[in-house]
């Protein structure tokens, strides 16, 4: 791809498929303005996908949403340049998002999701073309073999909700694929597996294609990163580099990996703050820890990183965890076995990278098991337990029903947002995307109230002083 400063020279590659695989950078000349504008348009799409995923949208909702986002942002007034815009914007964002592991992960996940839904919208013949391009030479199951496994295939089709009610196995084309190539279908028990082969229905091929796409892109991103550090950044330091660097920070939002400058949480106030400003996921972990003097690994990570993000200093964190955990395992074992991982979370051990507090999306997607208390309570609590927990937080019965309604529709972050609004008596337009954001917003509101009541009553000033100590 070549970037030209002024006049444009459109060169649409001939016979580009409606859905490119982005296997090599296009031989196109791009105006500098387009370079940035196209990228921003695509980022809007990816950001929209990211938000939708974190709200736990269902596949059918996602399909509409992605198609809508694409139409809204990726059009071009010159229809012959639509594909060009698609390809260019993808390659620009590759540069932007190749530079760290976290950026790559985010980009990979969003681009893969985008690809998945675009692929689903293609016609069957267009899908076959892409399978060909990806070298997926699957043998369809021959009829003699089909007779043998027909019953099992039917069983799987009926057991799998997403297969749709009107699926007739007899009319569906099946492919025999090594199970390693369809991890998602295996994980969801959405295929029949026999002797190492998964029997994949034509409509499930999406998963195979997406896996291929993802792995190609993942490798490409690593290569791009190498090129970026070895040459591009240097060569383009006056032209593309500033654009690339600005683009990367513009849309992801804060990750709370560094505690806010002004906020500092002291051990003295931690219980009070937990009761007033922790989101339910953290409150629950905090209370369980106080109660059991124990949390399993997943819980320690989720709570520990949150506390770090909320401003608990390393020494205080060590004291806090020690006070609890050592009651169960003794101070000596704590020092030997747990202190390490706490320092590790603060980047003092191991790779010495600071670990980032978990976002709502990560927490929602985690899979707590027996004895675990982490994960998103809105998702994992039973109806009954959730109602009890919300009641304890002070959510009224009217709002409670709204919250439960969101939960039933799997809008866990919206449920959390409603809870926040109900407790704080103040709206939260941006929605809750991160437990540390919940915490920060809550503190802001409460401190404003304290200041307000200070001026009227003059006795609560100590509280505010406390919170700043």
């Amino acid at each position, binding site marked *: 791809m070549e970037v030209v400063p002024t006049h444009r020279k459109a060169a649409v590659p001939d016979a580009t498929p409606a859905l490119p695989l982005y296997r090599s950078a296009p031989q196109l000349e791009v105006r500098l303005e387009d370079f940035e504008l196209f990228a921003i348009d695509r980022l809007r799409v990816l950001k929209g996908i990211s938000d939708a995923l974190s709200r736990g949208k269902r596949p059918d909702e996602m399909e509409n949403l992605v198609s809508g986002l694409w139409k809204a942002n990726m059009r071009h007034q010159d229809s012959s340049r639509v594909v060009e815009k698609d390809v260019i914007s993808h390659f620009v964002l590759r540069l932007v998002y190749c530079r760290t592991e976290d950026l790559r992960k985010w980009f990979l996940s969003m681009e893969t999701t985008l690809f998945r839904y675009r692929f689903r919208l293609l016609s069957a013949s267009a899908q076959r073309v892409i399978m060909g391009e990806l070298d997926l030479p699957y043998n369809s199951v021959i009829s003699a073999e089909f007779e043998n496994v027909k019953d099992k295939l039917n069983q799987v089709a*009926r057991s799998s909700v997403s297969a749709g009610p009107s699926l007739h196995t007899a009319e569906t084309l099946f492919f025999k694929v090594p199970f390693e190539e369809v991890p*998602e279908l295996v994980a969801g028990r959405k295929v029949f597996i026999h002797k190492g082969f998964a029997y994949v229905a034509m409509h499930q091929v999406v998963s195979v294609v997406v896996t291929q796409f993802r792995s190609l892109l993942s490798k490409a991103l690593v290569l791009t990163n190498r090129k970026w550090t070895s040459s591009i950044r240097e060569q383009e330091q006056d032209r593309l580099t500033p654009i690339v660097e600005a683009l990367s920070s513009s849309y992801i939002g804060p990750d709370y990996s560094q505690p806010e400058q002004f906020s500092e949480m002291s051990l003295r106030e931690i219980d009070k703050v937990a009761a007033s400003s922790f989101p339910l996921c953290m409150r*629950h972990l905090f209370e369980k820890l106080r109660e059991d003097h124990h949390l399993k690994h997943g819980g320690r990570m989720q709570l520990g990183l949150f506390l770090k993000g909320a401003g608990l200093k390393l020494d205080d964190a060590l004291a806090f965890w020690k006070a609890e955990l050592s009651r169960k*395992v003794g101070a000596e074992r704590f020092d030997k076995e*747990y202190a390490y991982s706490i320092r*590790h979370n603060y980047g003092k051990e191991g790779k010495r990278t600071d670990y980032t507090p978990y976002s709502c999306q990560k927490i929602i997607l985690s899979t707590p098991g027996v004895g675990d208390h982490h994960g998103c309570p809105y998702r994992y609590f039973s109806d009954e337990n959730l109602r009890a927990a919300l009641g304890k937080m002070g959510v009224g019965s009217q709002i409670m029903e709204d919250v439960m309604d969101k939960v039933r529709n799997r809008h866990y972050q919206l449920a959390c947002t409603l809870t926040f609004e109900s407790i704080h008596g103040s709206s939260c337009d941006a929605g809750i995307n991160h437990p540390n954001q919940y915490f920060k917003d809550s503190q802001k509101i409460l401190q404003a109230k304290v200041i307000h009541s200070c001026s009227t009553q003059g006795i609560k000033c100590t509280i505010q002083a406390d919170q700043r100590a």
Partner: protein
Amino acid sequence: MTRLEGEGGGDDMAIDGAEPAKPQLCNVPEGFDPNYLKLYYGKLFPYAEIFKWMSYGNDGKHPGCDHTYFGRREFSFTLENDIYLRFQSFSSSSELESSIKEKCPFKIDIGPVYTVDPAKRHAYAKAGDNVFSPVERELIFDIDMTDYDDIRYCCSGADVCLDCWPLMTIAIKVIDTSLRDDFGFNHILWAFSGRRGVHCWVCDLRARRLTNEQRGAIAEYFRVYKGNENNHKKVSLGQVLHPFLVRSYNEVLETFFEERLLPGQKLLETEERFENVLQMIPDESFASDLRGRWQDHRRSSNVKEDINIVRWQQLKHLSKSGKHKAQGLRRCVEEIVFSFTYPRIDMEVSKHMNHLLKAPFCVHPKTGRVCVPIDPDHCEEFDPTAVPTLSSLLRELNMGGPVADHENGWEGTSLSKSIRFFRSSFLQPLLKSCKEEIEASYNTELQQSKNSLSW
């Protein structure tokens, strides 16, 4: 159980469920003693077998053998004072043997095979590129009895007995069958974890080369239990069961539930216990109908029959009767059976290549029991309370007369059955496949290089 991850995936430690040891009076003569352990490593530990296994045929003379293979495998030792040595590596069987004899580890863990010798990883890291990463690792499963504490009434925590052990037998049967029939794996080793669980090592080449994502997919395939501490309904099955679950239910779960767990754990005997079962029934009128019958003691006058079985038959019968023939009640019977029987694997252990797992034939430092292999075809005969212990083995050694008669110290002890089983049922077929694979891949490479020459 101590669990550690490699540096690749975040080397934070997780030490879960390791409660302080309770004094076990009955075990006093069986106690664990570092001096006994020294003798065990001196005379009994099967070094040659472990080396053969971990070499996967690469210790042979075939030109296709990779002689660096064994040396890139991570071992880690936990020493007497909880000193933890990670990234140990050995270039030969004798090096492995002399290091174990010298350090006398309380626990030996086996990690992945890395791109480079893990002991020299820092040197490689300094050289620039981040080349140190795992390339091969057995697909492993860790099943621990503590994860079943909500459904066993006989014991809890670290204890196991013959009333709860069937849960492990079920896990072996369900997972072993699926690994072979569904996933097509052949070389699977099951081992007693030494106290309260079992470990599984899937050693086929295909398994060793799985990515983390693929490992996660297999682990998810096995996962049915979706509940946690805050959700009563632990198992949620869809309207129609996947063939794997149908087979597991028909061949293993139902029988074990009705014949072993129901009477063994007395699941419906008291009100408190049957309430736990009734809670899983979504239909309130059905549940209260049963509650009424079960609270009424006079009806169950037949003392000869086990009350648990009688009540279960009532539940099953009623669920099919016209009165409650609501959709989902049949599924509910299955869900109850699944809740009380279905395997619960530690997902995290299976998902990541760089998770460590205790080596077979280690001795558990709390129980003194050897982590012996378990034959999946006869796993119902396995008795965790009859596994050879350090002291029983040493007593046998002392009684066995001149050991020099045997090539191996373990001949004539009760460990010999386990080692022979390991050799004949696991190691030999595995090495045969490895040899074929090495030859095949060598020939393909040869062919390819010929082709490229003539190009």
